[in-house]
């Protein structure tokens, strides 16, 4: 029996949906893209300047046409990420501008080499079902920053990728890169490798780029993930229930645009809802209320049977301290209990501004605990205990019986060396190393052990050709990170 945590009772869920549909009809949504407005108007929405009022019937029929599940594939074409149902998967957080330098402990600007290290480590950790375009490569010109990140991840990884475009010009180039990686448009459509995050701006505002991006992705049949990010009390109602209403309204309007562009194209109800800290003005990703918003939003999506996404496991701590472990660990467990299909955010510090490869390693341990929890307690043997008692004899020496050896790996998650379960003596002997120090050593080992995937020379040439072309036009003379 899988645990399933639901924060909304049936009555509250119904009221949330009622208000979400009321909001997109009575107040309306700002849609900056003329093409998106035309699509909406043709389907029966009322358009007045940039405000679009979406009737509930239209929204519901759009939700109806969304596929209830779909998969992302690895380089070998195997379906390794499942969106839909109660499957739970994790990927590192995206788009940080800083990285925690493991030697100086400074938060410094990220570069291509940092992305490469993050990708290498995430590749080696089975807890991460997918990669993400985790950081901005600051030495790469902004106009091709999104394309270049995707290129580096494709270059170093076999896993599926959670990514996103920064501008309307780059989305087609990124899709071109994915087509080259898959071999053809058809292959990409049949076995998508990447999903694109698209962010509405809170409250209820679809920028020209976001709306256009949804249309382009839908028409290319490239999966899209809506990242609605209401901030309770600042860019959303202060109440958690009110924030979930807004999140639902933003997701529903984005899905409507997406499905009008191409009914049946894959899209995910996702986001990074968070509270707003009334003292610092930041968005505390480690707050329990932020976790609750993610759980409740996923529950709303599940009431329609839609695939889900959430932003959790990021911490507001500035280094790998107790706060980072506490916030991220709790969020990993809670997100898993909520059955959120893709949980982004591992590795992140400083309220999503800073990435840390070491934290990625530590978070993998929290995720492993969550994954173990989801496996639940199973009756693996015919008699639960009686037979083992018989075999263990009067002494009760369970270490000696074959069942112990047979089942302990399935029953117990065996943590990496980041988690210290050794004796006090051995801890003292090894120099009293703390979590961060152990994580730093683990990172070095993982990076050293990582091998670049075997990519066919044809695909490799095509990837390099596309990126070189764009890089030259952006004024770059070399390709950093490869």
């Amino acid at each position, binding site marked *: 029996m899988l645990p399933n945590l639901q924060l909304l009772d049936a009555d509250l869920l119904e009221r949330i949906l009622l208000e979400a549909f009321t909001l997109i009809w009575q107040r309306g949504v700002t849609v900056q893209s003329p093409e998106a407005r035309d699509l909406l108007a043709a389907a029966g929405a009322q358009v007045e300047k940039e405000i679009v009022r979406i009737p509930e019937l239209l929204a519901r029929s759009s939700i109806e046409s969304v596929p209830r599940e779909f998969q992302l594939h690895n380089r070998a074409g195997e379906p390794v990420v499942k969106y839909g149902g109660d499957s739970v998967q994790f990927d590192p957080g995206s788009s940080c501008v800083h990285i925690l330098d493991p030697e100086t402990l400074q938060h410094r*600007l990220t570069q291509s080499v940092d992305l490469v290290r993050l990708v290498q480590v995430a590749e080696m950790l089975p807890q991460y079902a997918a990669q993400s375009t985790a950081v901005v490569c600051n030495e790469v010109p902004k106009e091709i920053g999104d394309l270049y990140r995707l290129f580096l991840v494709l270059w170093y990884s076999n896993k599926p990728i959670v990514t996103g475009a*920064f501008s309307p010009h780059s989305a087609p180039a990124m899709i071109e890169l994915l087509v080259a990686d898959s071999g053809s448009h058809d292959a990409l459509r049949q076995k998508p490798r990447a999903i694109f995050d698209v962010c509405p701006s809170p409250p209820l505002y679809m920028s020209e780029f976001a709306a256009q991006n949804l249309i382009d992705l839908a028409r290319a049949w490239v999966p899209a993930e809506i990242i609605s990010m209401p901030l309770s*009390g*600042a860019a959303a109602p202060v109440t958690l229930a009110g924030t979930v209403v807004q999140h639902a309204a933003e997701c529903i309007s984005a899905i409507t645009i997406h499905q009008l562009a191409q009914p049946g194209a894959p899209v995910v109800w996702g986001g990074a809802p968070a509270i707003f800290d*009334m*003292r610092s*003005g930041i968005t505390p990703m480690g707050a329990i209320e932020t976790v609750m918003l993610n759980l409740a939003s996923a529950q709303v999506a599940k009431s329609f049977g839609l695939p889900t996404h959430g932003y959790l496991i990021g911490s507001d701590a500035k280094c790998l301290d107790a706060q980072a472990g506490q916030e991220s660990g709790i969020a990993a467990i809670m997100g898993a209990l909520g059955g959120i299909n893709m949980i982004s955010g591992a590795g992140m510090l400083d309220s*999503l501004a800073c990435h840390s490869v070491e934290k990625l390693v530590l978070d993998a341990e929290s995720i492993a605990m969550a994954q173990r929890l989801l496996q639940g307690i199973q009756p693996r043997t015919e008699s639960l205990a009686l037979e083992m008692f018989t075999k263990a004899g009067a002494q009760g020496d369970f270490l000696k019986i074959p069942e112990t050896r047979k089942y302990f790996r399935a029953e117990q998650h065996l943590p990496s060396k980041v988690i210290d379960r050794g004796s006090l003596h051995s801890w003292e002997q090894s120099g009293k190393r703390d979590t961060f120090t152990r994580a730093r050593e683990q990172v070095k080992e993982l990076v050293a052990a990582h091998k670049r995937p075997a990519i066919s020379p044809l695909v490799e040439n095509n990837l390099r050709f596309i990126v070189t072309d764009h890089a030259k036009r952006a004024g770059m003379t070399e390709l950093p990170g490869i």
Partner: protein
Amino acid sequence: MQYELFQQMKQAVIDGDPDRARELCQAAIVQGICPLDAIQHGFVPGINFVGQQFEAGEMFLPDLVLAGEAMKAATSALEPEIQKTGAARESLGKVVLGTVKGDIHEIGKTLVGTMLTANGFEVFDLGVDVPFETFALKAKEIHADIIGVSALLTTTMTGQKDVVEAVARLGLRPRVKIIVGGAPVTQSWADEIGADGYGKDALASVALARNLLKKPGETQVR
């Protein structure tokens, strides 16, 4: 009597009550109190108190925002009277403010505007989603001393760098100072992009602006 009214004005700002602030402005006008005195000795102490309490962690952003609303209500209620009497507030300097392109968050930027205005700066608020060049062009047009650029998102804070560059292209540097703020922004980020200063909150922006515009020999303001 006047003292009592000023105390009530201060309290109206602390309570974040725009309606009460407007009422008190009317009372001041009826009593023939100089409108500049009402602002300076009535309302400004209120907003400064809230700012200090916020900095001390005793008050929170909603308190600060509503105090700003009360402050704005008071200044606009007194504006016609100020015009009539021909009095003018001494200006400490002109500040162009805005939230950078791609970002529609205005709370932080508006609070900075409120605090700067309350403390004697002339503020030109360009609003949100402001193109990089617009900051520079407005600064040139009004002979601004300072440009303040806000960004709430890690994805938009890079735009602050573009503003610094746009201002340099118009040849306004280093005369026009650039200050940056917003949740993800730090002093080291400000240094990296060549901005002149960073304020961690709205109150800090006042000291920052004063320090940037002080003449040689004047002492630093905290």
